[in-house]
């Protein structure tokens, strides 16, 4: 696993030619896999594209926008460069959203940034960590749901996603962060358009949607492939903004059965919320065909 000096998951960047593709997103865009199986690496290797990955774990769409804004002048792009923005059904609406006025944000100078680094080191105190674990009000173990898969192995689910991923479109538009999400999508579109970059949004469903039949104790391969409420709302927003949109839920549900029956593999890790190597290989092809080509 390799990161560059700016803190993004990239190996060497070919600066002799403009970028073909940016990947922006959270841990799904960053990839819960080895370096060679991240979307960015697959697109570079299999489709000979000059890619740069701006995805960072535990980021909200607003935080992704701020990272994009901060890096916007660093790269050579061309007319037709594509920005693939990965969003996630599970938590993108519930995470942090800040001011859309970038200049109003608390940007730090050299000294303050150095102090922030020092405080980050201090915060990793083992004694403090142990005390915080003992006094924690919420037991994280209660958030994990363990179910037996067809092969007898435990397939783990994240309980909060069994609710947040199944919100209706009405619940999505009534959510306190909906207006902020909408404003963020518009801002990213504007930022991309100002540089002649084409924006496409790819929505990653939660494992709790793709393998819902497992935690719901339903018959195998009966997950509902209808778009989630979040997907319905996003598709509408993208249509309004003229943004390409790809919902990975229907193809992932279909592929989950084929992959398991032919290879015995899952598209998500058994003990993690992220897409597995197989999941990333499959979705990278979809992204190329639907949003880039």
């Amino acid at each position, binding site marked *: *696993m*390799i*990161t*560059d*000096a*700016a*803190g*993004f*998951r990239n190996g060497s960047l070919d600066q002799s030619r403009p970028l073909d593709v940016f990947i922006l997103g959270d841990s799904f865009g*960053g990839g*819960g*896999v*080895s*370096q*060679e199986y991240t979307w960015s690496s697959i697109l570079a290797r299999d489709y000979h594209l000059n890619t740069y990955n701006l995805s*960072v*774990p*535990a*980021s909200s769409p607003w*935080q992704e926008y*701020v*990272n994009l804004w*901060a890096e916007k002048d660093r790269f050579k792009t061309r007319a037709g460069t594509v920005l693939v923005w990965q969003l996630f059904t599970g938590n993108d609406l519930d995470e*942090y959203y*800040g001011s859309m006025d970038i200049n109003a*944000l*608390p*940007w*730090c100078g050299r000294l303050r*940034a*150095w102090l*922030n*680094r020092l405080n*980050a*080191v*201090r*915060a*990793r*105190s*083992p*004694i*403090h*960590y*142990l005390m915080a674990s003992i006094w924690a009000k919420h037991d*994280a*173990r209660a*958030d*994990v749901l*363990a179910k037996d898969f067809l092969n007898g192995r*435990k397939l*783990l*689910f*994240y309980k909060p996603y069994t609710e947040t991923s199944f919100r209706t479109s009405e619940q999505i538009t009534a959510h306190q962060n909906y207006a902020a999400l909408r404003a963020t999508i518009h801002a990213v579109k504007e930022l991309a358009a100002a540089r002649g970059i084409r924006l496409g949004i790819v929505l990653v469903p939660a494992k709790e949607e793709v393998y819902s039949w497992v935690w719901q104790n339903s018959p195998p391969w009966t997950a509902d492939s209808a778009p989630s409420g979040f997907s319905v709302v996003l598709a509408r927003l993208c249509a309004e903004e003229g943004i390409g949109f790809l919902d990975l839920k229907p193809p992932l549900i279909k592929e989950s059965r084929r992959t398991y029956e032919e290879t015995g593999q899952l598209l998500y*890790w*058994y*003990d*993690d*919320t*992220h897409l597995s190597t197989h999941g990333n290989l499959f979705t990278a092809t979809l992204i190329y065909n639907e949003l880039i080509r």
Partner: protein
Amino acid sequence: MNITRRTLLYMAATILIILAPAIEGALPPTLFWPCYVVAIGLVVYAFIGASGRTQKLTLILASVALTLTAADLVLRFTPIVFDELAERWPRMPLVNRYVPNLRYEGRRFNDLSRMAGVKEWWEEKQIS
């Protein structure tokens, strides 16, 4: 009581020792500030009031502070705290970035089994 320059110097040094866990991060002042306020009060009283009992208590407090700080520093070399790959970006702490220039190989991406704390549920996957 006559307060000499030397007394003030010793007092400052003792306060610094008492504050060592706050500076090092083991007992952050945001949570433990009442303890620090009381401890500093005791130190000042021990040096200015020269009460034998308070001086002994100050010695105990300084020993505890030093032990805690030393223990925390040593424990930082153990894997008690999970080594995160991402951190707050120092230039704009409202957003995250990966740790820059990272070259990592090992076991990763098992957030749920780690949360559950059940070793039998761990899926073996080597990340490079």
